């Protein structure tokens, strides 16, 4: 983040700064017009794109989100050097949402609206991000295969923990391979691919004045649409362990934006990758190759997580087949 004069930037917004508090990727400002958040965008194109979908989403009727405050020149952002700066209102009375079918339904509906809004923008190509996702998935799979091969050749006659970890490699690689193949499924059209923010978490949802509020999305990391949904559903099922919430979210989503078979395929492909297990197993392999002794506790926890994810995958797959059937 380049150094810039906050007061100079704030002068464009006609606010007088009383106190500045650093935030991740920005600042919390106490101004004469109330608390404000100053966000710094390393990528100006993403900032423009973000502004576009926010405004479109507001025009669709959902105003429970953070919109960029315009400068005195009526510009929604300030460009300082190679980065952009935006200012939004800081809501002091945001509350966490209470999980439930209705809320989940609304969340799904809002995300679908957001995706639609993002889809209308042509600033960022979704096809490029799809290809990027495919390449990244395949590369990771190849790395995993190489690591597994090396590990098995080296420690194939080991016993105990090392043997057990070696036995995990086969189903691990199988999932990764499946993810790669699904990403290349012909039902997934690059032309229809769109971009969204990479991560959608429960922190993006707040309740303000008993209304659902969508917050965040100031990170520049983007990806193809439905990756955010995949991550969100995964998180929701792992934390709530309620498959009905997943269905409600998808129902709400499909109310605004129907999901086709290709969409479900993409969703499952992005969700099937055993990220936790691979991460823990890769760490174990690295430590073992160095002759160090590493605990398998993380792997065991990842297995627990993956077992729940497997249930979710199966459920969504069944739902997808109903769509097709």
């Amino acid at each position, binding site marked *: 983040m380049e150094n810039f004069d906050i007061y100079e930037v704030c002068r464009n917004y006609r606010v007088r700064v009383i106190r500045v508090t650093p935030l991740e990727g920005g600042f919390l400002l106490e101004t004469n017009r109330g608390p404000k958040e100053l966000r710094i965008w390393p990528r100006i194109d993403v900032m423009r794109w973000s502004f576009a979908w926010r405004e479109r989403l507001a025009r669709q009727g959902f105003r429970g989100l953070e919109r960029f405050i315009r400068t005195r020149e009526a510009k929604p952002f300030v460009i300082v050097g190679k980065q952009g700066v935006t200012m939004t209102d800081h809501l002091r009375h945001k509350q966490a949402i209470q999980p439930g079918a209705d809320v989940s339904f609304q969340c799904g509906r809002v995300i679908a609206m957001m995706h639609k809004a993002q889809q209308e923008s042509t600033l960022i190509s979704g096809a490029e991000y799809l290809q990027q996702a495919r390449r990244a998935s395949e590369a990771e799979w190849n790395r995993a295969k190489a690591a597994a091969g090396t590990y098995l050749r080296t420690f194939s006659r080991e016993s105990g923990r090392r043997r057990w970890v070696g036995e995990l490699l086969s189903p691990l690689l*199988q999932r990764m391979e499946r993810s790669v*193949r699904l990403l290349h499924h012909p039902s997934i059209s690059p032309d229809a691919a769109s971009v969204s923010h990479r991560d959608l978490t429960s922190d993006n949802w707040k309740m303000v004045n008993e209304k659902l509020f969508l917050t965040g999305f100031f990170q520049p990391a983007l990806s193809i649409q439905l990756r955010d949904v995949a991550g969100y559903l995964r998180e929701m099922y792992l934390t709530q362990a309620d498959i009905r919430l997943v269905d409600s979210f998808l129902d709400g989503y499909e109310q605004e934006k129907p999901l086709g078979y290709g969409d479900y395929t993409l969703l499952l492909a992005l969700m099937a990758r055993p990220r936790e297990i691979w991460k823990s197993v890769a760490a174990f392999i690295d430590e073992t190759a160095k002759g160090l002794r590493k605990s398998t506790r993380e792997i065991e926890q990842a297995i627990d997580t*993956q077992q729940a994810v497997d249930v979710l995958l199966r459920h969504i797959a069944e739902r997808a087949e109903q769509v097709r059937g």
Partner: protein
Amino acid sequence: MALQDGLLSFNIKETVFLSPDKAGIGELKELELVPDVEVLENDTYISITGCLHLIGKYQPIRETAEAKGSGTETLIEAMTFPPFQRQGADQMLFEWDERISHRIPLNITIPLERIRDASDIFAIVDSFDYQLESPHQMVIEAELRLGGIQFAEIRETQESSQAFRATEQPQEGELPHFAGDWTFTHVAGEEEGQSASTSAQAELEQREDLEQEQHGLEEALDQQHAHEEQAWEEQQAREEQQAWDEQQEWDEQQFADEQEQQTDWQGGFEEVRESGFAQQVESNQELEGWPASGREAESEDLFNTPALPARAHVEQRFGELTEDWEQETVSARSSLFVREAISAESPTSRPEEPLTAEEAERVVAIHDAEPRAVGFNAGHNAVESSAGSNAQQEAEPYPHQAEAVNDEARESIPASAREAVDDAVDDAVAEAGEVQADKSEAVETFGEQGEVKVSISGKSSGAGEGRLNITSIFTQASKTKQEAEEQLEQSSSSSSARKGAQETFSPSTLEAVQNLTSFVRNREERTSRLKLCIIQRNETLEQISQRYSLPVSKLMEANHLTSADQLVAGQILYIPQ
């Protein structure tokens, strides 16, 4: 079966199917066939029972990932994964090395006369090889060798037989090593169990038929001639394509020779087929009139059967006994021997217990019907004269010599007939051997006879089932006449007991049937293991030698390797023990 380097050799071919719940074989790591047998001894025979244990390790095939990753399957299938197993779980879905464990039941009975000492007996598994038919199907082939069995006498017998044959039919092929001295029946296939289970009942029925049909011998003689001739001709054509047709021809010659000499009833040699547990030979003997089982067993059965009208009975009994024989083999032999048997009469000595008139008539009929056995024993009996000394004293001249049936024939026929009726396949063979031994003893030129019964089964069930899968029986007469009489009495007195003995055949039950009072004891036999190692990628001879704690030179010598660079992934390496 064959005799090589003084060892009885049996070819074993077994198809092993993995259960569907086991992962398929992707790559075999280790495979070995270990004899796991014990030697049981009583006063008449030694039984080698146990199994051949197939043990192996393999890397399972990753068929799940390959089958469901094409992208054309439904998403449900695509999202069906094998679960990750927790540490310490009992069953891993994909173990690095899955294990194979399969047992091939084994039951070999050897007459005590053939063994100097039970501790001399040893079993070797040699020439072990395998072939993967599919990830869940594997065919193994091996050679089981038995040592510690006396064959010197057999060789002498063979030589004498060959010499005798040479004078009569010099154009015949080579005589098997112990031709004429050993008779065995090789039975393979699962259906055999059914037939064997009913063999006792069939034998009883046949015995009844035997008595009833004695009166129609002359009429049946003509029919028998016709059938035999026809069957013989048909079989001859098929025999030319058989590997062992030479022996049949030799048998014919032997038969003719013995017919002239009217020697005794010793069983001849039949080559043991390896059966491969596969060939299910139905009792085609109904058409051919000759049993598929070993010759002594056949001769026994034939002896029990009225010569001509009893053809159907013979067929039925033999069918039970010899289901796993090839039809051609059976028919050929039956035709050969029965054809000539009609006119054959062999001298025999009268056992201590005189025959009744009815028995004598039956003997005549049976003997006429089954003169085949005469031809086979010509050679051995001379060799086995050692055991014949005692029997000769016991033998009595048969009182009905005027009936144009010589003493030997009469004596052997009733005894064998009773035994055949009474006993199951193995039992019948065993008894036949005993009885024939007595006969041969009566004739000074004939020696002792023993019996060797071999049962190798791919079934993992009990011994009764096991002997039905592959049974090789080769008999020698070694028992006394008294024992035969005891068996006869026992069998005739309790048919149910006989059935039970057949169904649950084992050395112990056999003893019970035979009313033997001898004890059974276990002795450790010498066994040898043959280990196989399948060379993995980048594996070197040094690594293997270290793994098995063997010098490289020994490995190279055992595998005929000239250099260590000859190793190729997938190559089978024999690990000497």
